[in-house]
């Protein structure tokens, strides 16, 4: 479903990704952990081409991200093609990034109407259903400023889901939330996982990871140090770096 081949990315003089090779199968839930600066966020942003990779390739559903293969050579995709590809990759951000000038419903239906060209009535019907699914059926007309952090993040999830993505990327979705509000967001994410959504989650919520992750990945300084199923990863980590990191956060 997602394949990263030897991905490199540098910002100025800083090598943030130094050769990431990494696969995610359809329906798999991968949780990525690691110290800050390890490149976790950058990796997510490269997958949906919010950043362009410097070396290596990323494939989503067999299609190279950002480039088209023409007779064996790679040609840069046009902005419109990249935008179209992004429409089927959902992303949820640490700071929610809701559109403040639109209501909750407005946030959820804007892209389906203007990007997928759905009729307003259809989009609103689907949007309401999506908001109800994340537990915000009574908040259609609320503006983001009137919602709590947990509610805002759930709207953000609904907004991403409204585009019917094939994969969902989560960049530390609960890191900016008050502790009491973390649970409601994780519940939504867990039910998504149970429904078989392919998910890549950067998070420090170990409880969540143990419960729904199919695979854990530790990143540090731009490389993948270790990966494996949660049971093996948490109980019998192989690398020193992993043991060190786990001892700090568990």
């Amino acid at each position, binding site marked *: 479903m997602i394949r990263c081949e030897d991905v490199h990315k540098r910002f100025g003089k800083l090598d943030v990704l130094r050769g990431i090779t990494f696969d995610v199968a359809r329906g798999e839930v991968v949780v990525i952990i690691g110290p800050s600066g390890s490149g976790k966020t950058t990796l997510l942003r490269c997958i949906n081409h919010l950043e362009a990779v410097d070396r290596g390739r990323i494939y989503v559903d067999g299609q190279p991200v950002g480039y088209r293969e023409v007779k064996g050579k790679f040609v840069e995709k046009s902005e419109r093609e990249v935008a*179209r590809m992004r*429409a089927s990759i959902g992303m949820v951000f640490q700071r929610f990034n809701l*559109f403040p*000038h639109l209501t909750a419903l407005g946030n959820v239906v*804007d892209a389906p109407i203007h*990007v997928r060209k759905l009729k307003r009535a259809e989009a609103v019907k689907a949007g309401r259903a999506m908001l109800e699914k994340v537990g915000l059926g009574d908040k259609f007309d609320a503006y983001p400023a009137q919602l709590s952090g947990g509610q805002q993040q759930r709207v953000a999830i609904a907004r991403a889901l409204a585009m019917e993505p094939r994969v969902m990327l989560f960049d530390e979705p609960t890191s900016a939330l008050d502790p009491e509000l973390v649970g409601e967001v994780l519940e939504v994410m867990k039910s998504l996982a149970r429904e078989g959504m392919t998910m890549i989650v950067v998070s420090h919520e170990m409880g969540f990871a143990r419960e729904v992750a199919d695979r854990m990945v530790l990143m540090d300084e731009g490389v993948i140090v270790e990966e494996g199923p949660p049971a093996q990863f948490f109980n019998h980590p192989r690398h020193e770096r992993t043991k060190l990191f786990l001892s700090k956060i568990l």
Partner: protein
Amino acid sequence: MSIPFPSLDYDPRVVWDYLFSPIILEGAQRTIVVALAAQALGVFMGVVSALMRMSKNPLLNVPANFYVWFFRGTPLLIQLLFWYIGVPQLFDNPELTRQLTSFRVAIFALGVNEGAYMTEIVRAGIESVEAGQMDAAKSVGMTYAMSMRRIILPQALRVVIPPTGNEFIAMLKNSSLAYAIGLMELLTASRAIYVRNLKTMELLTVASIWYLGMTTVFNVMQAELESRMAVGVRQGPPTLFGRLTEAFGAARTRFR
């Protein structure tokens, strides 16, 4: 009506006589129309120019930078004279010269000049919108253009309006420079009268009252617009109008 300052050669009755005379009214109307049209042109050019300036493509950002540099760096009066006298002189085309009336040239010159200043205001507004907004817009499949139109610019608007209001007030007054290219606006009208009846101060008072009136009305409108735009966000600064209506509403409930 008695003259309050018998030792000064100033007659308030003259002020009152000319305040609503046809020539003055026409001049005031032309001032407002020119200022509005020029400001609209300026805002449009400012948005286009700001987006061009922010582009990484040198074909776009170089002309935009030149435009801002040149039109902010030369006096408005020179720009007015350039478009009105200089351009027809260059082209030497009688039809063109006829089409370039002071009214049209004033709007164009003031608008182009204003656009250079609006560029920076719009750019500041766009940059004030969090980077995360563009990320979020792109992540749901919007192109750069759609993200700008639907997500970024509407938010930038909130930051752009107060300084633009400032600019419009300056525009109302700068329009008087167009007297140099023969536009019959408010100041020209006042001048036309006082060179005949020698009541210079009185007629300048008339013009000043009108300018003050226009800028005051505009202030009220701007405050109203700002409070409407603050949907679900911070409370704007208290306005005179807002406080009056609040006090009025409170008084009504008290004395019901």
